[in-house]
């Protein structure tokens, strides 16, 4: 098994992929529970514009991703809680971002390959420095979620009572969206903007079907996400010999596990 994963680029892929899978499982649990998966989806696409802009101006894509996703997350958070209007505003913001993305791309000739990596991820092109940065940002997210775990759960489940009990419901909602934004930014290099959902929503949604209790659900989502990454990389490298991309396998596995869990449970 270790021989199979001996090459440094494969190790980097595994390390970054595992970090992203673990963090996305935790963030995804709350995202699904809060009914905010559309915001998660939109933030990925908004991040795409940021990354394209960063490349145009000669900066690291991750920097652009972070600026655009956290900026959008702050705007969404400040819009407040009325969900119908909320989704419309997110949708309009997200189409603006896609428009900007295509503008940045057209201004930067010869960038087609980079776009492909942004859209679908380039897990095998991750450097050791990227791994360190991903792990550091991931750790920050995990520590932040741990610090607010109980009030975040309470306000997710029952914002009315939580507010009466003195929980800062609005501030938590905003802070949580910022964590989603950072998580999406580090996920993009692994699975790409179009597939951030695979790690963010897939494992959490599947785990919610299979076990009861928040602790077990989050733990199972972490295990599932990590397995998707490892199995996806193994299949891409050793079965498809690099001809089929890892992102395809990761997305396919996520689907293949979710469907029976959805159909067979409860």
């Amino acid at each position, binding site marked *: 098994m270790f021989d199979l994963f001996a090459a440094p680029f494969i190790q980097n892929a595994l390390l970054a992929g595992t970090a992203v899978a673990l963090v996305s499982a935790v963030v995804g649990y709350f995202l*699904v*529970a809060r*009914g905010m998966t559309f915001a998660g989806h939109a933030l990925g696409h908004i991040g795409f514009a940021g990354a394209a802009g960063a490349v145009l101006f000669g900066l690291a894509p991750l920097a652009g991703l972070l600026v655009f996703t956290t900026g959008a997350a702050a705007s969404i958070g400040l819009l407040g809680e009325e969900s119908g209007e909320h989704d419309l505003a997110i949708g309009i913001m997200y189409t603006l971002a896609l428009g900007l993305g295509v503008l940045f791309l057209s201004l930067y000739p010869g960038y087609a390959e980079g776009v492909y990596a942004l859209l679908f991820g380039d897990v095998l092109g991750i450097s050791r420095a990227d791994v360190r940065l991903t792990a550091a940002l991931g750790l920050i997210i995990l520590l932040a979620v*741990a*610090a*607010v*775990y*109980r*009030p975040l*759960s*309470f306000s*997710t*489940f*029952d914002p*009315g*009572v*939580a*507010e*009466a*009990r*003195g*929980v800062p419901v609005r501030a938590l909602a905003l802070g949580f969206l910022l964590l989603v934004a950072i998580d999406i930014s580090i996920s993009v290099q692994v699975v790409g903007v179009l597939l951030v959902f695979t790690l963010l929503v897939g494992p959490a*949604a599947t*785990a*919610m079907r299979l*076990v*009861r*209790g*928040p602790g077990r*659900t989050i733990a199972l989502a972490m295990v599932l996400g990590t397995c998707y990454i490892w199995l996806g990389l193994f299949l891409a490298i050793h079965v498809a010999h690099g001809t089929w991309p890892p992102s395809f396998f990761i997305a396919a596995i996520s689907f293949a596990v979710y469907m029976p869990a959805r159909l067979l449970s*409860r």
Partner: protein
Amino acid sequence: MSSVVELEHARVCLGDRAILEDVCLVVEEGEFLAVLGPNGAGKTTLLRALLGLVKPAGGSVRVLGRVPSRGNRAIGYVPQHRTLEADLALRARDIVGFGLDGDRWGIGFPSRRRRAQIDEVLREVDAVDLADAPICQLSGGEQQRLLIAQALLTNPRLLLLDEPLASLDLSREAEIVALTEKVCRQRCIAVLLVSHDINPLLPVVDRVLYMANGHSAVGPTDEVITSAALSRLYGSPVEVVRALDRIFVVGVET
């Protein structure tokens, strides 16, 4: 010693509109008060004022002798019922536990003491056998029991229940009323229960607060729910009919 709730000429506005006008009310320890009135009369706003979620624009509001503020552990609150989110993967025990430490920072690892406290309150609301059930599988009445248990975990001296009887069938309604009365008497805490209908509450309430048109009347059921008193409150003719030990208010939408 101060009363649990004291409102003197309280006026509460939402935006430009006065929702409560000149409400005077004193509720003592161990008292069961029904809060009645049509939709939009300000029943929920009254509870929100007691919780410190809206500030009075005039007069005074006191809870246990103090100006209300958020995060008061002496108040247990069960807001108007909503369908509990099915996708949270929470068990009954988890949602009841929010009442104990949902407002504390950090993860909060399980402990024997925490578990015992939750079991005890589940016994009090007669829901021990539901402890590990996923909440999405529970009926409306069962969910209501758990939310009351959640509200009791801080040992409140005032319990605010907003429409706990809405969308329950008659026998579930009676169960929740009986549970609320038991909690009120055994713990000797003040209860404000918001309801559309006085009938399920007739045998248990001490007094009623009837709200309509921004105004209110408070007193024993027989004095407040009368044709004369309600006509005055609504400013239009209202007929109160008593039949088969039930009370019907005719001439207005309740």
